[in-house]
């Protein structure tokens, strides 16, 4: 019973808003810390890759960005499911706060993929299964954001967006599978990435960068969800108290 109570307490916007505010600096600090450590290992310490030369160092942002782009979509779908099942106010806002960061991650993944592909495969873009799926994932993000932006009523936007996310998450494996199949049929195995055994420093560099991206995404999403919360709940007493409280603090 006590757990239940706590869960509800944190799910209530009035508690969550200040909590998020306190959490943001921590995640920002983690992001900076992991980022610096990861860059140090990846850019300064790690040796070159004997097949790909120094160009492989793009991996330290390409792979974390791709992971995050997929992970964020899954997290959004998770919030969507929670929101549709339990009708919690916060879930839809969380999904909306995550979407732009997820889309940026997908874009970064494509951008760095292109910059990696040019020296390795000799082309900015190849219809490789992974790049193609990533492109479709970017379309899914854009579709979600466009749908949510087109609906005026925030509650309807949450629900419709959530439904779209669930439909998308069911489709992602199907899309990935079909694209991969299509790719192998058309291209043979000509553009497989070289799978060199990775040095331990490289692996650590990549993991640290992944943690950096992860903390970064959380910090940005929390900040964004705070604006959405204020906007949505601006007629409630807690927002009024919160705003006036902040005002007092500034004057003091």
């Amino acid at each position, binding site marked *: 019973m006590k757990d239940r109570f706590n869960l509800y307490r944190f799910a209530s916007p009035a508690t969550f808003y200040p909590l998020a505010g306190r959490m943001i600096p921590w995640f920002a600090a983690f992001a900076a810390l992991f980022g610096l450590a990861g860059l140090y290992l990846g850019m300064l310490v790690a040796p070159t890759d004997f097949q790909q030369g120094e160009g492989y160092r793009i991996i330290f942002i390409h792979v974390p960005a791709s992971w995050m782009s997929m992970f964020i979509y899954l997290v959004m779908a998770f919030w969507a499911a929670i929101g549709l099942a339990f009708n919690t106010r916060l879930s839809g806002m969380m999904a909306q706060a995550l979407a732009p960061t997820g889309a940026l991650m997908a874009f970064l993944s494509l951008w760095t993929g292109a910059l990696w592909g040019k020296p390795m495969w000799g082309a900015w873009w190849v219809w490789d299964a992974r790049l193609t799926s990533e492109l479709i994932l970017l379309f899914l993000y854009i579709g979600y954001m466009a749908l949510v932006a087109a609906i*005026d*009523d*925030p509650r309807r936007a949450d629900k419709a967006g959530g439904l779209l996310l669930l439909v998308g998450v069911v489709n992602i494996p199907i899309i990935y599978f079909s694209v991969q199949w299509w790719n192998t049929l058309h291209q043979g195995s000509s553009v497989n990435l070289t799978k060199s055994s990775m040095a331990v420093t490289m692996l650590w560099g990549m993991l640290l960068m992944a943690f950096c991206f992860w903390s970064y995404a959380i910090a940005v999403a929390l900040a964004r969800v705070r604006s959405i919360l204020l906007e*949505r709940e*601006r*007629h409630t007493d807690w927002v009024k108290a919160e705003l006036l409280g902040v005002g007092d603090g500034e004057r003091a």
Partner: protein
Amino acid sequence: MLAAEQLACVRGERRLFANVGFRLDGGELLYLQGRNGAGKTSLLRMLIGLLPPEAGQILWRGQDIHEQIDEYRAELCYLGHHNAIKEELTPLENLLLSARLADETLSEDDALDALEQVGLAGREDLACKYLSQGQKRRVALARLVKERRALWVLDEPFVALDVAAVAWLAGIISGHLQRGGLAVMTTHQPVDIPAGTVRELRLG
């Protein structure tokens, strides 16, 4: 039979009403009144189970309507401010189709009879797009003639009707109440319903 408890409605970010409740039994009619934008239509949409209430619940025969939604809807007849008729179809086709889609049996004779009652005799085979606004409304209202479901929810049923049609509709509703039916309706111009107990609920 129908009870609403502590209903609250929020549209967009405006709180339209809160703590609205009523009870309605067989043979009773509830007039829903209030200025424009007070939430009359929203309350009706809550009663028919399309709009989940922000707070509170609606009970039908003592049980929450969302726990028995198909059974509840089998006893519910709703007439919105859209006529729910297809312009390309004739009045007769419209009537038969809406009965079929609502899972009711309506014979062609009964349908013709109903159309005759609403004064559309001779126009059964004319596509509805050639009818006037009032005539289209009558096609929609013709559904009520053979309607035997217990609860009628009517959104502004008297709009666009002439005096004779208003009297006719009042008679139809009276008949429904006399059979022990319930009715909830919104209206700007209160019309005398000769039979049944009339309750009023004012929003805003």
